[in-house]
């Protein structure tokens, strides 16, 4: 199978969907992959730096029959559009009684590890999970990035695509053709029997590296990638935990009210899964600080392989 990078896979997804459906339009201050050359200025819109109006315009145009892709670029900038995300996009369908659909996709880069300091190193997906009404994708491989973004663009709801900065240059196999990954279906990235590690985005890759390392010691790690946070495929995660009896969740967001917290709760509130647990659930998350700039401090703020290994060993004690 051919190999392309995570960033190339995302560009392919947009181009293919724009070719497939002329109602797909894209708005942003800049674009990768030169879509304006192929699709022209009516459908590829270079915009002023106006996140609020762009977020609402995507929603409004979606309610009028289009399928806009709004590029926030960094998730950081979406906070400028809080009203349109939280008060409008997440509520509009339900509060209007389902009388219209709003097929808009919001794209943003997310995560730390790039020495971009506090504002540009955030992973706030749980904030958007909390408001209800937004679907959320968080791919960890080029193939999933392409397949999930294509599904997001075709979905008839507002979807936020969190695209991990540290994965952009990572290459991996991506199937040819119309490769789709359904929203709401987790993927067991590596099968194992001793411990389940649920990783998010970059930490799926890190969990796989740790699993390979611990296999040398005879520890069998199963790596589960939720891939979408809303809807969250709780059942695949619970089934893995019922098999292994142990759970470690790894994410680069801080732990408080996080996706990791939600996953832990979803696992333990199911009595069958709870009874299958052989040890306490462990979370490996960022320090509860704004991500600092200096390399030594940034490294200290974010999870690393040693922390994942320590958490796995803790569940095995």
């Amino acid at each position, binding site marked *: 199978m051919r190999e392309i990078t995570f960033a190339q896979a995302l560009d392919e997804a947009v181009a293919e969907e724009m070719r497939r459906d002329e109602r797909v339009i894209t708005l942003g201050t800049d674009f990768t992959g030169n879509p304006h050359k192929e699709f022209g200025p009516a459908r590829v819109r270079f915009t002023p730096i106006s996140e609020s*109006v762009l977020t609402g*315009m995507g929603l*409004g145009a979606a309610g*009028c029959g289009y399928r806009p892709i709004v590029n926030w670029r960094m998730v950081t900038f979406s906070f400028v559009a809080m*009203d349109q995300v939280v008060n409008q996009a997440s509520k509009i*369908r339900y*509060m209007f009684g389902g009388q219209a*659909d709003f097929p808009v996709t919001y794209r943003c880069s997310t995560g730390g590890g790039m020495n971009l300091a506090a504002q540009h190193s955030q992973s706030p997906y749980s904030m958007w999970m909390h408001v*209800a009404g937004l679907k959320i994708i968080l791919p960890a491989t080029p193939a999933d990035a392409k397949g999930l973004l294509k599904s997001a663009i075709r979905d008839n*709801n507002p979807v936020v695509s969190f695209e991990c900065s540290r994965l952009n240059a990572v290459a991996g196999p991506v199937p040819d053709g119309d490769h789709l990954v359904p929203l709401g279906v987790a993927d067991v990235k590596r099968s194992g029997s001793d411990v389940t590690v649920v990783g998010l985005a970059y930490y799926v890759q890190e969990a796989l590296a740790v699993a390979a390392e611990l296999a040398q010691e005879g520890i069998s790690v199963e790596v589960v990638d939720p891939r979408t946070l809303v809807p969250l495929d709780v059942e695949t995660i619970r089934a893995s935990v019922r098999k292994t009896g142990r759970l470690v969740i790894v994410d680069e967001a801080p732990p408080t009210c996080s996706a990791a917290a939600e996953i832990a709760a979803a696992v333990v509130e199911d009595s069958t899964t709870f009874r299958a647990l052989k040890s306490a659930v462990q979370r490996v998350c960022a320090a509860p600080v704004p991500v600092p700039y200096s390399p030594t401090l940034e490294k200290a703020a974010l999870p690393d392989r040693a922390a994942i290994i320590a958490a796995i060993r803790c569940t095995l004690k």
Partner: protein
Amino acid sequence: MADGNDALIALLRNMILIREFDELALNLREGGKIYGTVHPYVGQEAVAVGVCANLTDADRVTSTHRGHGHCIAKGADIKRMMAELFGRVDGYCKGKGGSMHIADFAVGMLGANGIVGGGLPLATGAALAAQLDGKGNVAVCFFGDGAVSEGEFHEAMNISSVWKLPIVFVCENNQYAANNAVAVQHRNVDLALHAGSYGMPGLTVDGNDVLGVREVSRTAIERARRGEGPTLLECKTYRWYFHAMRAVRPPETRPAEEIAAWKARDPIARMSTELISRRVLSESDLGGLQRQVRADLEAAVAFAEASPFPDAGDILVDMFATA
């Protein structure tokens, strides 16, 4: 537009319907028949009716927290509006929205909005859709003087002008943003002057003159239909009552002389006098119109009261589109 008598009478009738609807809504809220909050549009009827007289169902509008008038003027069904206020399944939002979130996408009414300025980006998106459709349809965004202080106003005005979007920004300057007078909120109280900094026309009209509103907004709407871009239209008007009420009517804090002066410029009395003087209708025709409106509203209340409350088991319905 041909000024047949029917069109003129429809303007008056719609204004009366809006006023009576909101007077009734206030009474229903006081009587505990409906819930939450009511933001009366009384006094501003000429704005919604005058502007929407130039629109078709294919043109889209966004509204505000004070949205009943825009809904009625855009052609929404008062029975389903009333059922929504009553929180019933036959309401426009199946009881999920209430007064502040009534929408009727079938007639191009893209929703009231509980956030001041919140509709501006949505209307701008509707205008983008209209531009891409290329059929000469337009978007109209209704908002108040309060929204002019919001960042979304600036963003929406700027991008609409840069892209020449087919949109008319209708600022209903009712002299108060919640309880604060316009001069407390703005250094320059002639809000249409903002248009110049965005490179678009800024028009001002007496918002209590339905014929004037219709005429001036028509020039802005026709300009948008021709693809020549947006216009800011400021309609100077007055909110007769308080910003909002919940269980009881809040005390009046504005000067009595000011209220009296604006009530003397009642848009409905003005249009009634105009049509009687033109012999378009008689005093007795006017009485008939008012009786018909009241009968229609009684029927709307009966419809709402006959409609069931939503089933608690349907709490999750409408969260996500399934396809």
